[in-house]
Each structure stands twice: as structure tokens, then as C-alpha cells.
């Protein structure tokens, strides 16, 4: 019983947190399905749902795994949900009685509008009761999820996910449909979410696909585990070739389909994919936690600016930097990359001896030094100080300028594909395997004859080179550079991308960048909460799913082994809260 109440209270606290941060009120108009299901509503019911799901999990009691019965799952979930709802409801009633304006003097997001959402426009007490009921239902649903056999549960989950995802993409999908001259009225409301009919169609499609995939699942999985290591297999069969062709065609068509705004967002996403790919080499492959990665971003951007004839904003008007060249962008890029690799070696050399957390902090320090230096009066003659640099090359070929978002997309795509290719080949090569060995156990790798010093330096150099490409692209994209773009936060954002996607996983970097950069770019309302989301994602991924969203195959196998070993150890020690469910399953 105490467990249920605790889960409920935690869920309620999370809801109140979301309300006070302002997330609930901010999204009251973002309709996902119909005009009823808004993102606010989702935020309200999600915590009790999760609480219900958690309390309904099978548990280990006295060493035995115990499934919950149907009644238990439903009632427990409902109780946890109700407790959550009751906490939020009580808080709402209290806030209303105390005077919302007095609370607002401290918590600026506590507005009467928020109260109205939380009480569904009813009187506070009635509203609170409705909230309790709603939360109880959400909790019961969460608990009930365990009752469905996996065969049914998977299609249901994918249907819900698909509907919500398409609801989120309401500013992308209709635009694309309109470009293709397809009618979209049946699917989307004008400037709103999915229609109920559209949602039903999407759900049905998702269920169908999910069932199909389930049926083929075993075959696909067998094929994946055979080819997934990416090492050595030169030949490609026809099916993969066709799939590749389709993907390439889609990628090429995107800017024409989605218009300028989305292309612009995708341009930023690709800059961050490049940064993520670079950091992935350093952190994901070689296991060196680099928190100063923004240094390469800044280096790439400013060097590109200087080499392609950028000018400085200064008090005397526009001046040339003390060192300046007027190269073509495509001539400058190799120079930038080589220089960045050298900088990587220079940064790497003195810190090689350090491991783990110390390395992380030294690199954080170096990164922060770069941001301070870029803004300092000392380097102003070179990079323009706080007022920055302008007139960076737009990488034009002939008279096609790449500053325009639609054409920039293609330039960025070319760079990203190149970096993806290099990363993938590196990973499968002797170098990549040496990195893996070094990451897993440095002493052993050393003993096996791997020169850890040179491989670490190589990782820094490669990571720096790819990161500087990101910087160069960024410079082309915005055309003028100021120190504000090179905050130390950039390093942490890139780290968030790599970790959310899964360390060492290339698709992971792409997914991570799409989620963490693309989603806030499309949902402008979310911009303010981007960093909050990064922080939450870093913690949540590390605690709940350390292998990331799209795990690297080799890596996740290692993590599993580690987990098993840990569980074996934990099973014998009384002071550990053993990760109970998974233990029992193995």
C-alpha cells in the first residue's frame, strides 16, 4: 500500500512540477488529436499512467518472480493514479483558495489560466474530483498494460505512438501533403492536430505494420545480427540497394516537399549531426569523455570565416582580421579540417594521461577557455570579440548560394553523408576495433600491443576534424559569427544527442539530433524548455536506458553482460536495491 501511495505522490509531484515550470499551460492549444486531446492533457495524464505502469510491474518477492493478477494490476494502478490526481487536485484547490496571484509573486507560471486547465473550467472542488477520476483511469490503464499479452500489447503501443507522433508533426506532414497535391482534410484539422478519423486510420495502419513486423521479426532479427556489425561485408544484396535508393531519393526530395522553414530546421539538425558524429568518435568509440567539444565547433566556424574573407564588426566600422585569406570555401575546408585535427592532437597530447572524470573536466575547462577567449578583447583583432565576424563565404558554386535554407540542406546533407561514411568505415576498421578495445579495458588493450597513446590522439584528431566540419557548415549557414553561438552549453547539447541516441551508434546520433534539435525547432513553443529537456534526457537515459534509443549492437551486448555481472553481484549483497525485474527474468 505504501508503495502505491509513494508512486502516486511521485507522479503528482511530477505533474505539479510540469505545471509550475509552465509546460502545461504553454501547450494548452497544441491539439494532437481532435480539439480534445492537447499536449497539456497528455502532460496531465502521463505521470499517473506511468505510476500505474510502475506499480503493476511483476515483482520479485523472496527471490521469486510474482506476476500481478488482473484485479491487482487494475486496482493498484487506479489507486496510484488516484493518489497522484488527489495531490494535484488538492494543490489546485489550495492555490485557488490561497489566491493564485500571491503564488504568482513567486512562481511566475502559476496563473489563473493554469488553474482553469487543471480544473477543466469547473469549480475547483469539482475540477479536482474530475482530475482524480481521470488520473485513476490513467493509472488503471497503465497497470492494465501488463495484462495484455505481448502479441497484443506491441501493436497497441505502436498505434498510440504513431498517432501521437503524427500529432506532433502537424506542422510538417500537412505541408508535405499539400506540396504533393494530396488532400489532407481527412487527416488534419486546419492548423491543428489529427482528426479523429485520421487518427483511427493512422492507428489501424500502425497496428497492421506492427503485426507484419512481428511475424517477420525473427527473420529480420537474424539478418540484423548477421550484418549489423558493419565489419567486412562488401557485397550488398539487391533489396538493400533498393532500400538505399529510396532513402536517398527521399532525402533529396525533402526540401522541395517541406518548404523553407522545415529545411532551415533540418539544416540546424545536420550541423548538430556532424557535431554528434565527431563527438561519437571520441566518446562513443574511444570512450574519452570530452566536455569541451564546442572548441572544435568554434574553431571550425571561425577558421572558415577567416579563411574565406570574413570581416570583423568593430567600432571603426568593418575591418579585416589581422590574419585573413580570401579562399574559395571548398579550398578552405580541407585546410580547416587538417588544422582542426592538429588542434585535436594538441589538446589531446597533454591530457592523455588523465582518465575518466578528470579528462572530462579538463576538456570542459579547455572548452570554456575557448568561449572566454573568443569573446575577450585580447583576440578581438582576430575574431571580432563580442561583436563578432561577418561576411563569411556562402560556399557558392557558380551562382548558387548555399545560404538559402533549401540549398543549404543539400550542402549539409553531403557533409553528413561523408561523415557518416567515414565514421562507419572507421568503426569497422582496425582502428575502430582498437578504440573499442581501449574503451573497454585500457590496460589489457595496451598489453595486447595497441598503442593507446596514438589511438587516443587519433580519436581526438578525427573527432576534432568532423566537429570542425560542423562549425564550418554553421558559419556558412548563418554567415556571421558571435561568441554567443559558442557557449559551453553546446558541448553538453552535443553530448546529450550522442547519449540519447546511444553511445557509439550512428543512427542514434541522427535520431538524437532529430529529437533534441529538430523537435524544438519545429515546435517553437518548446524552445524555452529545450535545455530542461536536455538535462532530463541525460539523467533519464543514463538511469533507465544506458544504451540509448538506437543502441549500437556491439555496445549493447557489452552493457548486457555488464548488467548480468552486476546483478549477480547485487543478488548477494543486502544493501543493494537489485534491479529486480530484469534479474528474475534472466
Amino acid at each position, binding site marked *: 500500500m505504501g508503495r502505491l501511495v509513494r508512486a502516486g505522490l511521485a507522479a503528482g509531484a511530477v505533474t505539479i512540477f510540469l505545471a*509550475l*515550470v*509552465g*509546460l502545461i499551460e504553454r501547450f494548452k492549444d497544441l491539439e494532437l488529436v481532435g480539439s480534445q486531446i492537447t499536449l497539456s492533457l497528455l502532460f496531465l495524464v502521463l505521470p499517473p499512467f506511468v505510476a500505474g505502469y510502475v506499480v503493476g510491474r511483476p515483482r520479485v518477492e523472496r527471490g521469486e518472480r510474482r506476476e500481478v493478477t488482473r484485479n491487482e494490476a487494475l486496482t493498484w494502478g487506479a489507486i496510484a493514479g488516484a493518489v497522484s490526481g488527489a495531490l494535484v487536485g488538492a494543490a489546485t484547490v489550495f492555490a485557488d483558495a490561497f489566491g493564485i496571484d500571491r503564488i504568482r509573486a*513567486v*512562481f*511566475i*507560471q502559476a496563473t489563473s489560466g493554469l488553474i482553469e486547465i487543471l480544473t477543466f473550467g469547473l469549480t475547483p472542488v469539482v475540477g479536482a474530483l474530475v482530475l482524480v477520476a481521470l488520473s485513476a483511469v490513467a493509472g488503471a490503464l497503465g497497470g492494465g498494460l501488463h495484462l495484455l499479452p505481448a502479441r497484443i500489447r506491441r501493436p497497441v503501443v505502436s498505434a498510440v505512438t504513431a498517432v501521437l507522433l503524427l500529432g506532433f508533426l502537424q506542422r510538417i506532414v500537412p505541408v508535405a501533403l499539400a506540396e504533393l497535391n494530396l488532400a489532407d482534410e481527412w487527416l488534419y484539422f486546419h492548423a491543428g492536430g489529427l482528426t479523429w478519423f485520421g487518427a483511427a486510420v493512422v492507428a489501424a495502419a500502425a497496428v497492421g505494420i506492427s503485426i507484419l513486423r512481428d511475424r517477420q521479426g525473427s527473420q529480420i532479427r537474424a539478418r540484423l545480427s548477421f550484418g549489423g556489425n558493419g565489419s567486412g561485408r562488401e557485397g550488398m544484396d539487391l533489396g538493400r540497394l533498393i532500400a538505399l535508393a529510396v532513402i536517398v531519393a527521399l532525402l533529396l526530395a525533402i526540401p522541395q516537399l517541406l518548404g523553407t522553414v522545415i529545411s532551415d530546421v533540418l539544416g540546424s539538425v545536420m550541423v548538430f549531426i556532424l557535431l554528434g558524429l565527431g563527438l561519437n568518435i571520441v566518446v562513443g568509440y574511444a*570512450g574519452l*569523455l570530452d566536455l569541451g567539444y564546442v572548441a572544435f565547433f568554434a574553431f571550425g566556424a571561425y577558421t572558415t570565416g577567416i579563411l574565406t574573407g570574413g570581416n570583423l564588426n568593430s567600432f571603426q566600422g568593418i575591418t579585416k582580421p589581422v590574419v585573413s585569406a580570401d579562399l574559395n570555401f571548398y579550398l578552405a575546408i580541407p585546410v580547416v579540417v587538417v588544422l582542426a585535427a592538429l588542434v585535436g592532437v594538441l589538446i589531446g*597530447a*597533454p*591530457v*592523455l*594521461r*588523465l*582518465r*575518466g*572524470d*578528470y579528462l*572530462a*573536466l*579538463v576538456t570542459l*575547462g*579547455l572548452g*570554456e*577557455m575557448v568561449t*572566454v*577567449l573568443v569573446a*575577450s*578583447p*585580447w583576440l578581438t583583432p582576430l575574431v571580432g570579440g563580442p561583436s563578432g565576424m561577418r561576411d563569411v563565404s556562402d560556399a557558392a558554386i557558380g551562382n548558387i548560394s548555399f545560404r538559402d535554407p533549401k540549398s543549404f540542406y543539400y550542402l549539409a546533407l553531403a557533409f553528413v553523408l561523408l561523415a557518416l561514411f567515414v565514421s562507419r568505415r572507421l568503426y569497422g576498421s582496425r582502428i575502430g576495433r582498437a578504440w573499442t578495445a581501449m574503451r573497454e579495458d585500457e*590496460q589489457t588493450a595496451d598489453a595486447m600491443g595497441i598503442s593507446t*597513446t596514438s589511438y587516443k590522439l587519433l580519436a581526438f584528431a578525427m573527432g576534432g576534424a568532423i566537429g570542425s566540419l560542423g562549425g564550418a557548415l554553421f558559419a556558412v549557414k548563418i554567415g556571421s559569427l558571435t561568441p554567443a553561438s559558442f557557449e559551453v*552549453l553546446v558541448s*553538453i547539447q552535443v*553530448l*546529450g544527442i550522442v*547519449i540519447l541516441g546511444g553511445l557509439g551508434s550512428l543512427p542514434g546520433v541522427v535520431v538524437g539530433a532529430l529529437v533534441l534539435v529538430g523537435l524544438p525547432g519545429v515546435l517553437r513553443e518548446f524552445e*524555452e*524548455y529545450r*535545455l*530542461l529537456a*536536455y*538535462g*532530463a*534526457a*541525460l*539523467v533519464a537515459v*543514463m*538511469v533507465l536506458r*544506458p544504451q540509448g534509443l538506437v543502441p549500437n549492437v556491439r555496445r549493447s551486448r557489452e552493457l548486457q553482460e*555488464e548488467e548480468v555481472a*552486476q546483478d549477480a*553481484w547485487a543478488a548477494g*549483497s*543486502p*544493501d*543493494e*536495491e537489485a534491479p529486480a525485474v530484469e534479474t528474475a527474468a534472466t
Partner: protein
Amino acid sequence: MSRLERLPWRRIILIVLSLALLTLVIVGSVATLSKPAGQGGYSGKTWVGFIVDGIAQGAIIALIALGYTLVYGILRMINFAHGEVMMAGAFASFFFLDAYAASGFLNRHPITVLLIVTFVAVIVSMSVAVLLERIAYRPLRNAPRLVPLITAIGASLFLSNAFRGFFGPQARGYPKPDVLTGSFDIGGLDIPKVRVLVFVVAIVCMLSLQLFVARTKTGRSMRAVAQDREIASLMGIDVNRVIMITFAIGGLLAGVAGVLFAETFEQVRFDMGFRPGIAAFTAAVLGGIGSIGGAALGGFALGLLQSIGPALLLSGFGIPSPFSLKDAFTFLVLVLVLVFRPGGLLGTGEQEKV
């Protein structure tokens, strides 16, 4: 020649680097000191002012550094979010202080109010620190060492932006009671009263912490857990409880530091914890992380370096406005300490366990 060849070239780079740095330091200081006051040089009185500033600054840094050192000593992990714990306390105390200032109560009973406000800050900081441990660190206690560091970074980002969401992005003026305005005249020097308060409180905190760890039973179990967690648990020590207490104490010190920090700079802001957090961490490493004396020493040393260093080293080269590079200086110190003497000034150099 054969001797040279046997040196790994990484060592050669390090030696060259350290020689270059040494030359720069000597040339810079000589150049600065030889300049007459007024023409880019500084008078003797200015130097003393720098030193006083540095000591007061160092006291706050040391106070925050104690939190890093305590947690590192016991868990071997860097609680990157410690600066945000301090920010949380400072922010919470702001609302009370602001209300007291508005009602005039602050200037009638300044000491009572400051005590109440500090109490609030301490409670909030302690709760945040303990929650942080429970949610973000405890599930990862046996994970590879980098994992809790990553969550700590995430937690730091999350906390500062949550406070931004709660209370808005703008800086708020932190009221100062009349008793704390103005300065004492000590031996012909004007020393602001706040700085004296900061210094005294910091010293008291450090001494009590040292006594607590050395003399009390809880302190003894903390030391036991720091030495060997498993054996300590076999000896009947509740390891989870001890770790929680450690975080609570760290939070307590951060709360006190938060109030002092806010009083010194007279404002609170959601990102006020980041830079001091890094400075404090640097100080902890500088002194030898894991030891309380080291954190104190490192704090004062870093404070002095920050206030004297830029003027002494950079002005000599004619670098304009050297104090804008103060933070770069902090990081440079961090990098140099970790590269050349990872054990810190007091430490002996920690070997990574195989």
C-alpha cells in the same frame, strides 16, 4: 641522444610546455612589476586590495568546494550539480529576504532575518542535494564511473533550467541589510563588511566540518565508507544512510555559501551556480580532492590566483583588460593542475585502480 629517445614524446611535450609556461609567468610578472603605477602598472595599495578581494572570494569558493570534496571522498564521483544546489538555496532565500526587506523587518532585526534566511537556504539546498542523490545517483552506484558524471551534468542543466522555468530568466536584486553595507577600516585598508562576514562564516564552517568528520560517530562512519564501502557495510554501517548524510551536509554548506554568494554580488539568477561551481571544483582539485584541508587551501589559493593572476601575468604583455580573462585563468589553472599534478597540492597522486 639515446636518453632523449627513450623519453616518450608525450613527456617531451609536457616538459616543453611547462618550460614555456614558466618563462611566460616570469616574463609577465617582471614586466608588470616594472611598470610604474598609472601607466599600466599598479600601486602597492591596489595590490593589497587584490589580495583582500582574493581571500574573500577564496572563502566562498572554499565553502562550495567542501561539498565537492565530501562527495568525491565518499563516492569517487564529481557532483557536477553542486553549484546548482547552491543556486537553489540562494533563490529560495531570496523570496524570504525580499519579503522581509519590503516590510522593513530586515533592517530592524538584521541578524535574526539573516539567520532565518540562511536556514531556509540550507533546508532547500539540503533537500535538493538529497533528492538528487536519490533520483540521479543512487541507481547508478555500481555503473562505470563516467555514467554518474553524465547524469550529474544532466541534473545540473535540469536544475538550473527548472529554476528558470519557476522564477523566470531575469536576475533578481538580493537585498542587503544596512549593517552589511559600508566597510571596516582595518590597518588603513577599506575592507567591505560583507567580505569580513564571508570570511568568518567560511572559517567557522570549515572548522566545524573538520571537527564533525574527525570526532563524531557519523563522521567516523563517513570515513569508513570513504575507505571501503563494502567492508563498511559489513561492519554494520548503513551505507545508503551515510551517503545521504554526506549529500545533506554538502547541501547545508552549499546553502550557507549560496546566501553569502548572493549577499556578495547582491543578485540571484538561475545560472549563478555554474561558474562558481566550476571554480569550486577547480579549487577542490587544486588542493587535492577528497581532503577538507585541501578544499580550504585550494579555495584560498584559487581566489588569490583569480584576483592577482590576471593583473600580474597578463598586464605585462599589454593584453587589454586582463580581468575579462579571469575565468579563462580559472580553467587554465584547472587544466594545469590536472595535467601536471592530478593529486593536487596536498595529495600524493591517485592511481587508477586496475
